[in-house]
């Protein structure tokens, strides 16, 4: 098999994931696109490992071992990412990454005060509960 086939498929999948990360608004869809990018890298690693195992002398099977490590780290990443998304959704009521602009600087600070006012009201209520307790 030509090495160009898996390499080109991997590049196309990576760019598809790149488009998804940049263009999606829901945080879970962004996580799906990140999974696509990681899988593209895995395909590259496996293809080059299969090629180098036959072409080189001693390669320690590093491509496939790294692929296993990448899969495990991706599983950990998706668990932590979903926990963060769920915590944000519980606090803010939304998981749209366009609305999470608390750290943004710019002229449009007053446009997105919907979730901020909710969070401020909740913080105020919590502070009052703490004060009266």
């Amino acid at each position: 098999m030509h090495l160009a086939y898996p390499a080109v498929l991997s590049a196309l999948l990576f760019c598809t994931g790149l488009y998804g990360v940049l263009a999606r608004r829901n945080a879970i869809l962004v996580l799906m696109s990140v999974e696509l990018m990681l899988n593209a890298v895995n395909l590259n690693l496996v293809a080059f490992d299969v090629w180098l195992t036959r072409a080189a002398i001693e390669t320690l099977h590093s491509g496939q071992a790294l692929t296993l490590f990448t899969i495990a780290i991706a599983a950990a990443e998706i668990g932590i990412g979903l926990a963060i998304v769920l915590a944000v959704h519980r606090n803010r009521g939304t998981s749209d990454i366009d609305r999470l602009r608390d750290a943004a600087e710019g002229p449009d600070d007053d446009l997105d005060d919907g979730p901020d006012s909710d969070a401020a009201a909740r913080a105020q209520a919590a502070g009052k509960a703490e004060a009266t307790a």
Partner: protein
Amino acid sequence: MSIAAASPGFLSPTGVEIAFLLVGLVTFGAALVTVTTRQLVHAALWLVVALGGLAVEYLLLTAEFIAWVQVLIYVGSVVVLLLFGLMLTKAPIGRSPDADSGNRWAALLVAGAAAAALVWVVVDAFRTTWIDLDGAAVGTTKVTGESLFQNWVLPFEALSVLLLAALVGAIVLSRKAKADAAASSRAPQERGDQGADRSEDRNTDRSAQEGAR
């Protein structure tokens, strides 16, 4: 090296190459639908098709163990986790018109430019490189296990520690807000006397929680 000279051309593909091309087209199409569909649950289900297609590609590249790990972890658990996340964040069933953000044309431009550059460079660099798939498979469970537990033991154990840390971190992240909410709702019940103040407090708290929800 004579591999480059002896490699066949692109116009006479072997059977494995034809199978790889067809499965690759299915995988790429499913990935495109995943990042462009407006129905969130359909995106997760098309992601299953894309990841399963990649598992078939691993099998065609004779990496059997990686293929089954891919099926077990990605198709088995990651997609289920994503579906649970979609359900728990109250994702809308059906078409949601705001699935794409406003900068999708800039994203399309960036992704298209990256794809063109990557495909050009990769094809130019590896157009004569030939993978020899005949003979014994290079990715069987025996070979992978031997290399993993002879050469890669220390990263393997470090990875298990990392997985444990990720597990504990996910539990802590999921429990913290709930513990706070329980504490703030239990706090007004514990003090008995300030009646009016307490009910006003609880109303404020509940309305704030509903607003946040």
